[in-house]
């Protein structure tokens, strides 16, 4: 196959943007995706088989056959996890990646989120660090993401956000009933509630129509195509340039390096199982935190016996997601209006500034709940089966509100991805293996966040509440996985520089959530997108004709 300028591995939130930025700048690009290009027709809103409720499997990949991972519990025992199981820490495997089926909350991190170590100091046992870039560096690229991807919302209700030059391109959807119940309650508590920014059309935008407000949102592909991901925005733009070729159901197995230690392309397995090579001037890895780390670690050679970028044993470390905690409130009036997407109102008052706490997180009402989501969310004393359980479902499905949020995690070097020495996947590649746990201070913050959610619900009139603040005994990653190829100035403590370029290989980039130093107290996707715009901007600026030289 002909040599191209750039190979991009992974057609998700970041990979799609990189492919679009490079191909519109005139570079020839090959974009690899291990999954399929699914549509809403492939799931048809199945309550039991989607990307959130996976009791009958994942709707948007990977399949349970031939894609295992390994996790190590806190006692040191190893377990196999299948993609439809929680311990697998799955995001998705498809064109669009997580953005095909996500809930689409599109948050900017706060300025403090980029300076966590300077703001709070590193707690013992943590690897808390500042980013090498600031909110101000990223602000123009946040804006670009908001306009190119299409974000609706309204920040005017809160002072707790970073400075911004432009409003969001779309107004928020009209409020649902939960918004109307929670908003006055938050104000009475002295909080600043506002409309969640969402990558969802509230009005016609980007050539597509608005949300139809159905019951099936997070975990499902949108049947009216009003949810904005890379699969219906940047990837079609990239393909339309004629400079970008997308290979679906193709697995990149290794990044190839030459004898001078530079990347020279990738080897990959096509949809028929044939091994092939694609040579390129640069390689961009955008496979999400777990798979990006795995690809670097699986690319071993004489010059790089421990994998690429791993000279100082940094690849795979600082794996973090979000520690979700919150509360369910039970009311004596109907709170359910069957109007999606459900999640509508948030407060960011608790993200920073609590004495004694190293950060915090955003709190928001949860997405619209399908009946299957209520089964184990009933008031604490409800029997788990029998007539009383059935009665409680009837009593509370329409009379409950869940408020919860992503607690910003305190990263640790011990929470990490390695490759398993024994277990291999269907492509005969060593699979990802997780070790470590969540930092204990994260649990403390999460507990307090849950109490805050409970207080909000009580103020809103909840007669009873139940707290959800578990302490899982494994590493946290999941859909919000981040941190495994940390961005930094010091090659001993990070994997890429602030332009997402590997410290020791100048034509190899990692551009996705792997580079997040810390993961904010927010859903990370808009930051992933902003980083992708930021990094591809510097990449294009440094592109010299047919060869890449930094």
């Amino acid at each position: 196959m002909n040599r191209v300028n750039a190979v991009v591995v992974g057609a998700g939130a970041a990979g799609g943007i990189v492919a679009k930025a490079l191909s519109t700048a005139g570079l020839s690009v090959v974009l690899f995706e291990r999954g399929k290009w699914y549509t809403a027709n492939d799931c048809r809103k199945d309550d039991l088989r989607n990307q959130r409720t996976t009791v009958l499997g994942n709707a948007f990949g990977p399949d349970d056959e031939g894609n295992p991972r390994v996790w190590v519990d806190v006692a040191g025992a190893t377990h196999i996890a299948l993609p439809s199981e929680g311990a697998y820490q799955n995001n998705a495997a498809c064109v669009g990646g997580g953005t095909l089926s996500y809930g689409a909350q599109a948050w900017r991190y706060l300025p403090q989120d980029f300076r966590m170590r300077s703001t709070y100091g590193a707690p013992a046992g943590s690897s808390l660090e500042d980013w090498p870039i600031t909110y101000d560096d990223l602000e123009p690229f946040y804006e670009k993401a908001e306009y190119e991807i299409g974000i609706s919302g309204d920040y005017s209700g809160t002072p707790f956000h970073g400075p911004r030059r432009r409003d969001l391109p779309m107004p928020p959807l009209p409020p649902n009933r939960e918004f109307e119940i929670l908003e006055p309650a938050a104000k009475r508590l002295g909080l600043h509630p506002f409309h969640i920014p969402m990558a969802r059309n509230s009005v016609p935008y980007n050539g597509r129509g608005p949300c139809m407000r159905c019951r099936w949102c997070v975990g499902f592909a949108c049947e009216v195509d009003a949810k904005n991901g890379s699969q219906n925005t940047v990837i079609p733009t990239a393909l339309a340039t004629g400079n970008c070729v997308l290979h679906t159901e193709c697995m990149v197995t290794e990044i190839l390096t030459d004898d001078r230690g530079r990347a020279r392309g990738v080897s990959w397995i096509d949809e028929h199982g044939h091994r092939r090579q694609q040579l390129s001037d640069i390689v961009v890895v955008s496979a999400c935190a777990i798979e990006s780390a795995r690809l670097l670690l699986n690319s071993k050679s004489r010059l790089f016996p421990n994998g690429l970028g791993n000279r100082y044993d940094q690849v795979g470390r600082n794996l973090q997601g979000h520690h979700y905690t919150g509360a369910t409130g039970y009311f004596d009036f109907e709170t359910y209006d069957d109007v999606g997407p459900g999640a509508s109102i948030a407060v960011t008052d608790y993200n920073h500034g609590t004495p004694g706490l190293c950060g915090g997180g955003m709190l928001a009402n949860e997405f619209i709940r399908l009946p299957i989501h209520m089964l184990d969310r009933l008031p604490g004393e409800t029997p788990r089966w029998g007539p009383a359980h059935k009665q409680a479902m009837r009593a509370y499905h329409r009379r409950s509100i869940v408020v919860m949020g992503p607690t910003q995690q305190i990263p640790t070097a011990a929470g990490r991805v390695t490759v398993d020495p024994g277990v291999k996947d269907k492509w005969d590649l060593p699979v990802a293996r997780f070790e470590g746990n969540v930092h204990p201070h994260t649990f403390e913050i999460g507990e307090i966040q849950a109490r805050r959610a409970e207080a909000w619900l009580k103020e809103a009139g909840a007669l009873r509440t139940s707290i959800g603040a578990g302490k899982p005994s494994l590493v946290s990653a999941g859909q919000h996985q981040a941190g495994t190829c940390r961005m930094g100035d010091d090659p001993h403590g990070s994997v890429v520089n602030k332009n997402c370029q590997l410290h020791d290989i100048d034509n190899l980039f990692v551009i996705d959530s792997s580079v997040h130093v810390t993961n904010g107290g927010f859903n990370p996707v808009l930051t992933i997108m902003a980083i992708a715009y930021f990094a591809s901007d510097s990449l294009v600026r440094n592109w010299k004709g047919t060869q890449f030289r930094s």
Partner: protein
Amino acid sequence: MKRLLTIATIAVCSAALLAVGGSYATSLYYAAGHGDACADCHEMAAYVSAVHSSPHHNAGCTDCHDASLSAKLRHIGVHLSGAQPESIRMREVDTRQMIVSCQRCHQHEYVSWHAGPHSATYAEIFANSAHNSKRRLMDDCLRCHGMYFNGAVRDLVQPQNTSGPWHLSRPDLADQPTIPCQACHWIHREGLPETKPASRISVAGPAIPESLAFFDRREEMHFTALSLPIPKLYDGATLLKVSPDQRQSVCYECHAPRQPETNSVAAINHWGEQAGSGDDRTPMGVHEGLSCFSCHNGHNQNARASCKTCHPAMSHCGLDVEKMDTTYANPSSPHNIHWVRCVDCHKHGVPKVRTRMKQTTLSAGQ
């Protein structure tokens, strides 16, 4: 060489004979015994038993279904490979063949449906440049048009944009109907045959044909008219009187209202779901409270002739009620028959003698 040719000819001919004969034989086999042969396959048993308790219990399986050798070999292949789907579903091609079967007995309904808008073809719906240039096609279109289509909308029409020109990726579907009989009728369901029209007239309101059901593409199954919702609708802030005629629930599945649009007057004032929003055509104004079926018959939606049921052929203003411009497609039309109000014509107020008409009460099904 010649001998070889002869052998080859004989082989081809006997293979063809075997196929034709075999096909005929399997058809005969499955036609006999009133479904017993079909029920021998345990996958089929439930469906055979369902049709036995349906109004079509006198019909044989092969009256509607293909039982040729090739179809049966396909079934056996699926059975042996262990790749059975969770349950048996109609394919798009099956529903098309079914139309022919239905037509054989229900000729009047077929002709009526064929003359009306619900027989619109794939080409008319999906390659319609007036529509496609204004709005993007999406998988949700298939909920009401082409609900049996096996694929996504991108497998049906290209390009997927608003600039066109659009062509069907499946040209064989161009002149095929998007809303087959089984969009609104459920065959394999319990029930008695339709009763005679005279006995339908009762104080309990209109009878609901038991076959009346909506095929939900999402679940790939029918939901009966009785189980489907009739929406609660508002005209501005006012709750609208909607006929309780349950037959309409099937119409509402596609002719459905929407939540108030972002920044609309209704959204800003927190009004409920508005009549006339989305695809809704619930009558407001002078026709408020009428059922869809007051004017439309189920198979042909032409309602012209029904005006005379209530109105004199010539209106008091001297207009021919059957020739008035009553277009419904244009929501802003002053004569939109679904939403026309007294004051749309009586610009200076409603004549006193007419106000007594308001006292009329409506019963179910009017």
